[in-house]
Structures are given as C-alpha cells and as structure tokens.
C-alpha cells in the first residue's frame, strides 16, 4: 500500500494524527497550530521546490539556498529603504534574488561545471558560498534584527482561532504561487522541458532542448521562489536578520527529502507536511524544539523510504 499509493497513506496518517491530537489536546488548539503549520508550510514549500529543481537539473545540493531566502528578505528591506510601497518592495526582492541566482550560475556554477569538478568539490563550493553569503549580508547590513515594515499586530478571528492579517496575506500569496508553480511544471512547455532535464540531462539534450537556457530559467525560478519564501517568512515575523535563511534550511531540506530529492511536486507537498508536523509537535513537546521534529521526520523517511514519500529516483548509493 505504502509503495503504490504513498499520497493516500500519508493523508490518512495526517488525518488520523490530527484527530488524535484534537481529541487529546483540544480542538481549538489543534485548529490554531494547523493554521500556523500552513503558514509555515507555504514558505517551506516555496523554498523546497527551488532547491529540489536545481538538484534535479544540475545534481547540485545548494547549501546556499537558505541564504537565497535571506537575500530576498534583505532585498525587500532595500526596497523599503528606497521608499517603495511594500508590494513593490516584495517584487523588488523576488526579482533581485532571481537575478542574483542567474548571476551566480554565469560567474560560478557554469565555469565550474566546464572544469568537470567532482562531487565533493561541488558540495564544498555550495557550503563555502553559504557561509560567504550569510556573512556578506551580516557585514553589509549588520548582524542585528531589522524591521520589515509589515503590520504584524492586526489579526482576524475565526471563532476562537486567530490568524494575523499579514500571515493570512502571505499564506494566500504562497499557496497561489505553489499552485502556479505546480501548473507551470505540469502543463507548460517550459515546465515539461525542466522536468525532462531533471530526469536526464543527456536525453533532454538529444531531443533538442536548449539546456543552457533551461538551466538559467531554473536558476531564476529557484532563486526567485527562495527570495519570495524568505520574504513570506520575514513579513509576518516582522523582522529579518542574516541568520533567517540558515535557520530555515534544515526544515527545507527535510521537505525536499520527504518529497524525494529532485521531485518538484514532492517538495511542495513535503513543505506543507513539514510545516504541519512541526507545528502540531508544539502541542506535545517544547515549541523551541520543533525544528528537531523536522530532522526526526527526515531521518525516519531516510530509514523507511530513502527515495522520499513520492520519489521514484535512486537515493541509495551512487
């Protein structure tokens, strides 16, 4: 059953867990953490889909992806500082991060691929880039928290449940974007070409797909979505600091692995799943430890289904 219909089993498991938590911890509590989980899940999902796409197309584990989220949030701050309205600042943040992603492909990743570097070199490059970017942002903007300028006090009440107005807006934006990404991948020619590349870059090349172009577009999408994820995290939080991306990358990796590395739909679902599980966990454990729950999920998935819950690819050995 788990092998043939993983999605169904998963949904059943989630519903069952939700019911048990609701019965034991109270319905109002489970409702509130479910809302929080969906809020968190949408920026995990947007972060995860970009990370997984780049892995699928280039076989690159981009450890610097978390810093892309941070970059987006700080690009928003720059927009704010220039006096742009918040909506335009968001756009500015997403576009700036996408341009940065494409720029890194041109000046770093493409030349490095041409040199035919090994797997360890790629991993270390990404790790070095992560530390470089995080500290470059800290160097330029200072290590302290910076206000993002969104209204974080206004909220809506649905019965006994509360959701912040900014939270609600970013969640809608996030979920709409997730749907658009999924539809683009599924139905557009661009999406099909990207998925073809993720399956096999050689095969895609022989069918006449302009791989260089698709790689650039994938970087733009991956980084742009990461920038958006960082912004969607920072706006309801009210502040950004140079460490936010790094603090989120663990949950994003968990979402990617749960969805099966390289599987874009899996990453979207995995992001929502990790968000829900982490927030639900706060009902039974110390909320400060919720990130550890994401790690636990990652380990369990690696143990029982290393190709991810929805994955078909090989994850065991090279």
């Amino acid at each position, binding site marked *: 059953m788990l092998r043939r219909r993983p999605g169904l089993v998963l949904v059943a498991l989630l519903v069952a867990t939700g019911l048990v938590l609701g019965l034991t911890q109270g319905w109002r509590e489970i409702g509130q953490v479910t809302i929080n989980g969906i809020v968190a899940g949408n920026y995990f999902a947007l972060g995860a889909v970009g990370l997984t796409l780049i*892995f699928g197309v280039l*076989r690159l*584990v981009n*450890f610097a992806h978390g810093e892309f989220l941070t970059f987006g949030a700080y690009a928003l701050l720059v927009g704010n500082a220039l006096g742009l309205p918040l909506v335009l600042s968001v756009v500015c943040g997403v576009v700036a991060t996408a341009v940065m992603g494409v720029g890194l492909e041109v000046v770093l990743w493409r030349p*490095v691929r041409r*040199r*035919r*570097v*090994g*797997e*360890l*070199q790629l*991993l*270390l*490059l990404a*790790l*070095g*880039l*992560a*530390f*470089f*970017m*995080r*500290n*470059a942002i*800290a*160097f330029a903007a*200072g*290590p302290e928290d910076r206000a993002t300028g969104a209204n974080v006090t206004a909220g809506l009440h649905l019965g006994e449940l509360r959701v912040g107005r900014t939270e609600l807006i970013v969640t809608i934006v996030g979920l709409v974007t997730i749907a658009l990404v999924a539809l683009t991948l599924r139905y557009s020619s661009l999406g099909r070409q990207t998925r073809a590349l993720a399956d096999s870059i050689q095969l895609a090349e022989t069918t006449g797909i302009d791989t260089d172009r698709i790689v650039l577009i994938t970087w733009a999408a991956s980084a742009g979505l990461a920038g958006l994820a960082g912004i969607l995290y920072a706006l309801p939080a009210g502040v950004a600091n*140079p460490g936010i991306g790094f603090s989120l990358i*663990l949950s994003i*990796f*968990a979402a990617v*692995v749960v969805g099966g*590395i390289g599987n874009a739909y899996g990453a979207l679902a995995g992001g929502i799943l990790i968000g829900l599980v982490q927030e639900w966990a706060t009902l039974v454990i*110390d909320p*400060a*430890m919720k*990130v*550890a729950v994401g*790690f636990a999920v*990652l*380990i369990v998935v*690696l*143990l029982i289904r*290393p190709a991810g819950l929805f994955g078909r690819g*090989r*994850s*065991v*050995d*090279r």
Partner: protein
Amino acid sequence: MSANDVLAVSFSFLTNVDFWINVGVLATTYGVFALGIQLNVGTTGIFNFGQAGFMAAGSYAMGIMVVRWDVPFWVALLGGIAVAAVAGILVGLPSLRLRADYFAISTLAFSEIVRYVADNWDGLTGGNLGLFGYTDSWNAISVRIDGWLEHLGIAPHFLLPLLVVNLALFLVLAAFVALLVRSPWGRVLNAIREDEDAARALGKNTFLYKLQSLSLSAALAALAGYMLAINISILSPANFDPVLTAYGYVIVILGGLGSYFGVVLGSFFLIFLLESTRYLELPLSDARVAALRFMIVGLVLMALVVFRPQGIFGKREELILRSRG
C-alpha cells in the same frame, strides 16, 4: 596616521608570545578536528559535513557530566568521547547507506540539531547563557604542568600548559591516524574511497568500515571539543556553528586530501592567517569584523576547491578521480 604607522602597529604582534601561544592552542584544536574530516573525506571518501555537531555532542556531554552529575573529570572525558562515537554510529546507521549528497545533508542537519538542542534545553546545557564550571580539575593539572615547566627553566605563562598538552595530543593523534590508515584496516578504507563496489566484491563489509570511520572521526571531534572547552572555559551553542566544519575542510584541502602531515601544516597555516587578521586595524565594529573573517573563510574554501583542489601537498588526482564522468 601614515601608512607606515598602520604597518608598524600591524606587525608588532608577531613578537608577542601571547599571539603565538593562542595560534598554537587554536591550531591544535582545529587540527584534531580536521584529522577526523581527513579520515572521513580524504581516506574513506564519505562526506561528513557534521563534524561541528560531533564536537558539540562530545564536549557538552563532558561538561554536563562534570557540572550537572558530579562525574569525575577523567571519567567524563572518556564519557564524552563515548557519546560522540555513539552519535557517529547513530547518525551513520540511517545515512551511510545513502548517496553521498544525502549523507552530506544528513550530517549537516545533525550538527544543526545538536546546536539547537544545546540552545534550548536550558536545564541541561545552560542554553545560550552557556555551561561552565567543568575546568576545576584542569586548573589543578595546569598548575602542575607549570611546575614541571619551571623545572625546565620556562616561566609560567597563560595557556602555556594547555598548549603543551594540545600539541602533544595533536602530534600523537596525527601520527596514530596516519599509521592507522596504513594498516590493513586503513587500506580497506582507502579501497572504499577508490572503488566501493570492488571492495565489496572482495568480501569487505564496506558499510561497517564506513561506520567505524565516522565513529572514530566523531571521537576525534570530541577531543577537539575538549581543547576548545578548556581554552574558552564556557560551552555555548555559538561556539559550534557549522562554519567550524568549513574551517576543517579548508585545513584538509590546504594540506591535501589524504595527507595527515598536511593537516598539521594546514591547521597552523590557516589559524596563523586568521589570527593575524585580528590585528588589522579596521574602522569597523567587532560584529562586522567577525562577519568579514567568516566571509573570507567561505571565499578561501571556494577558491581552494576551484583553483587548487590538490592543496599544497596533495595530488590533484585525489579529487579529480572522483568527478562524475
């Protein structure tokens, strides 16, 4: 102030004993830390990105045993090593069967989780206020070493006893691991790096060997953790940032993959350079200077990996052979 004045200020530290003792203490600490990475990456070919986490697990375990549970210092030292070694096995069991990139992710995630737990389990670890009070036994030892040094005509100096112990431990461990990888056991590790399928075809349980390599590396990280813990006499989550693991990789690649003598040279070289930058007179806040130093470490790692993957002493083929064809 003219340019000459700045230079005069910048280089006077080179004649300062404290500077060299500090470089020695830190270089030996990071050196032992990097020995484990060398064993994993250079010799066995498994990409351990969680060394900072094993270091934290071992040193926190030691500190907690001494401070919270009144375990004798020597027993706690053994206990911390055991905790780190077991952590290596527990992390390796689910993740070592996986592809190299999954393994790198899992180990990095582990190291963040250890830091997270240390930061949040205040009752046990002291949280971000830190854990302290485990250095009493060391202080007694330190006084005794000062006495021995005085017999040899060397005046007592701050941190000098720690430097003596660290240096001896580092050189012995480097020699030990270098000999170990030349043993039949080590040759299997080398075979795994070169061609795991071939090693398996020869009847070797490669998974078990990789697990042992990771566990031994974690134990080395615990020892490095003690050196750090005693040096700064307070354990705090901020001391175990994953950037430490990047330091370790810079040392390993500087010295050349697979070279243990290279680890000795690489660690002194890197720490000397990094500590020297502290004496640059920059018109910046401390936090920005710290960020600048980490930026440079990240950049050096990237530049080394691209332009000189063979390091100073290593053979270029060590890395190139592993490229996907």
